[in-house]
């Protein structure tokens, strides 16, 4: 299952590095499918019956499941191997990213402006503590150590290894699936300006620009590194995206200036207070008739205790301090606190656009999809979860 990035910033790797990355990628696929299935089986056959014997009932919360699983050998191996694989993802891409940094910087300079996009950095922007102070996802150095595009390169190439082929040809399946959901579910809605917040390297912003080629797409993040890299990446793909260094909780855009505000895997990096600030800002910059749309892990209230426990693994062991806090929220409450009407809330699940015929995709989004343990989880039967609200 070799997976090569095909844009202009893709690092050339030697055969041994490619073999190492393929191995780590396939190891992750094995962990998330085979080892996860074995752990679930061990829970059903051993841990759950033991819990029921002791308590006279099944676990009611993910904390009870987690506590019961800690001494289970299957959980220990799953967790230990998954934790190691996470480190190995970054170790498999870091040396090449460091070695090719001068060439990368030169390539970004030469590509800048070729496809009509732009880059605007704000050196005075204060980097929030949740980004500056943490190696989120165990990524060495974190996402915003400097303006050098190194962190962007490590993230992009690491994500290619990490995702084990589940995230689309340009790691853009979330953006493609969400944007095509909007396009086909609401055919009369024609967004002219789209804003991707917490966009990192712009892989999903580029997908929105492809789905809505007439729209002006902006992508913001607090990390100068990922934006600089993302700018070169989008330019090399021939997709115009306007990258701006900005904090989503304090947008520098005028009121009523966008038709879509989009996020992907972003909210779970924020405290609840910052999510509310961001949603208020999203409400302010949206035009009447505009849409807030977020791709995220499904809320815990939609899942049983075991699936809650399974998805919140990252919160405990992958340097994701707000992951569970976010998933414990009711997204309707969050949206309402941002100023949207509860009646205008929507949520949905969507299959992966990159891996099916458009006809089947369109048929699927018009039927009610169920939320289960495969929602938002990198596995063979993956579907994405989305929620948001219209601004009236």
């Amino acid at each position, binding site marked *: 299952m070799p997976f090569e990035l095909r844009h202009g910033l893709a690092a050339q790797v030697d*055969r*041994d590095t490619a*073999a*190492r990355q*393929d*191995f*780590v990628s396939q*190891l992750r696929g094995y962990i998330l499918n085979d080892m996860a299935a074995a752990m679930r089986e061990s829970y059903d056959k051993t841990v759950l019956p033991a819990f029921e014997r002791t308590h006279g009932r099944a676990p009611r919360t993910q904390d009870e499941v987690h506590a019961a699983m*800690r*001494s*289970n*050998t299957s*959980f*220990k*191996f799953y*967790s*230990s*191997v998954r*934790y*190691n*694989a996470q*480190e*190995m993802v*970054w*170790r498999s891409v*870091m*040396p090449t990213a460091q070695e090719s940094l001068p060439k990368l910087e030169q390539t970004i300079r030469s590509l800048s402006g070729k496809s009509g996009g732009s880059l605007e950095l704000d050196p005075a922007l204060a980097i929030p503590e949740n980004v500056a*102070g*943490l*190696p989120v996802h*165990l990524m*060495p*150095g*974190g996402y915003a150590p400097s303006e050098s595009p190194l962190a962007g390169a490590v993230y992009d190439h690491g994500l290619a290894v990490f995702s084990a082929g589940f995230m689309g040809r340009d790691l853009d399946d979330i953006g493609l699936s969400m944007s095509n959901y909007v396009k086909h579910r609401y055919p009369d809605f024609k967004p002219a300006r789209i804003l991707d917040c917490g966009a990192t390297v712009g892989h999903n912003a580029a997908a929105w620009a492809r789905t809505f080629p007439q729209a002006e797409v902006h992508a913001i993040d607090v990390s100068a590194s990922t934006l600089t890299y993302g700018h070169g990446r989008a330019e090399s793909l021939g997709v115009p995206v306007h990258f701006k260094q900005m904090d989503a909780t304090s947008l520098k855009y005028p009121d009523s200036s966008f038709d879509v505000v989009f996020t992907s895997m972003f909210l779970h990096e924020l405290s609840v207070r910052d999510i509310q600030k961001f949603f208020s800002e999203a409400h302010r910059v949206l035009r009447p008739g505009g849409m807030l749309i977020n791709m995220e892990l499904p809320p815990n209230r939609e899942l049983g205790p075991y699936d809650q426990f399974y998805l919140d693994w990252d919160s*405990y*062991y992958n*340097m994701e301090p707000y992951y569970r806090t976010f998933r414990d929220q009711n997204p309707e409450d969050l949206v309402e606190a941002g100023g949207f009407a509860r009646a205008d809330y929507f949520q949905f699940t969507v299959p992966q656009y990159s891996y099916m015929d458009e006809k089947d995709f369109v048929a699927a989004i018009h039927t009610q999809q169920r939320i289960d343990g495969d929602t938002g989880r990198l596995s063979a039967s993956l579907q994405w979860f989305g929620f948001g609200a219209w601004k009236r």
Partner: protein
Amino acid sequence: MSAASESSAGRREAFFETDAIDQLVTMILEVATDHWVLRERVFVIEKAAEQLGIRLAEAVEAYKLSPEDQQLLATQRKALIENIMRSVNRQHRRTTPPNEQP
């Protein structure tokens, strides 16, 4: 990549009763990865040689290592050992109470 750069906290999660088991998992996975990298390379070498009409297997058996070869291999072996042992001197965060029975 230095061990210290892998986490700002400088500690790794541990899931087994003793840190040693978690460290062994790391070692085994590193060995497995390098083992695979080598297997893939040997596979390609043999295939590429075959394309060139070279009977490589026989030539490999007949080859005598020079002192320079041996020095280079020693350096590479040391790097492999350091890579395998990278987790040994790291602190770990305990997630299982020491007396808890599996």
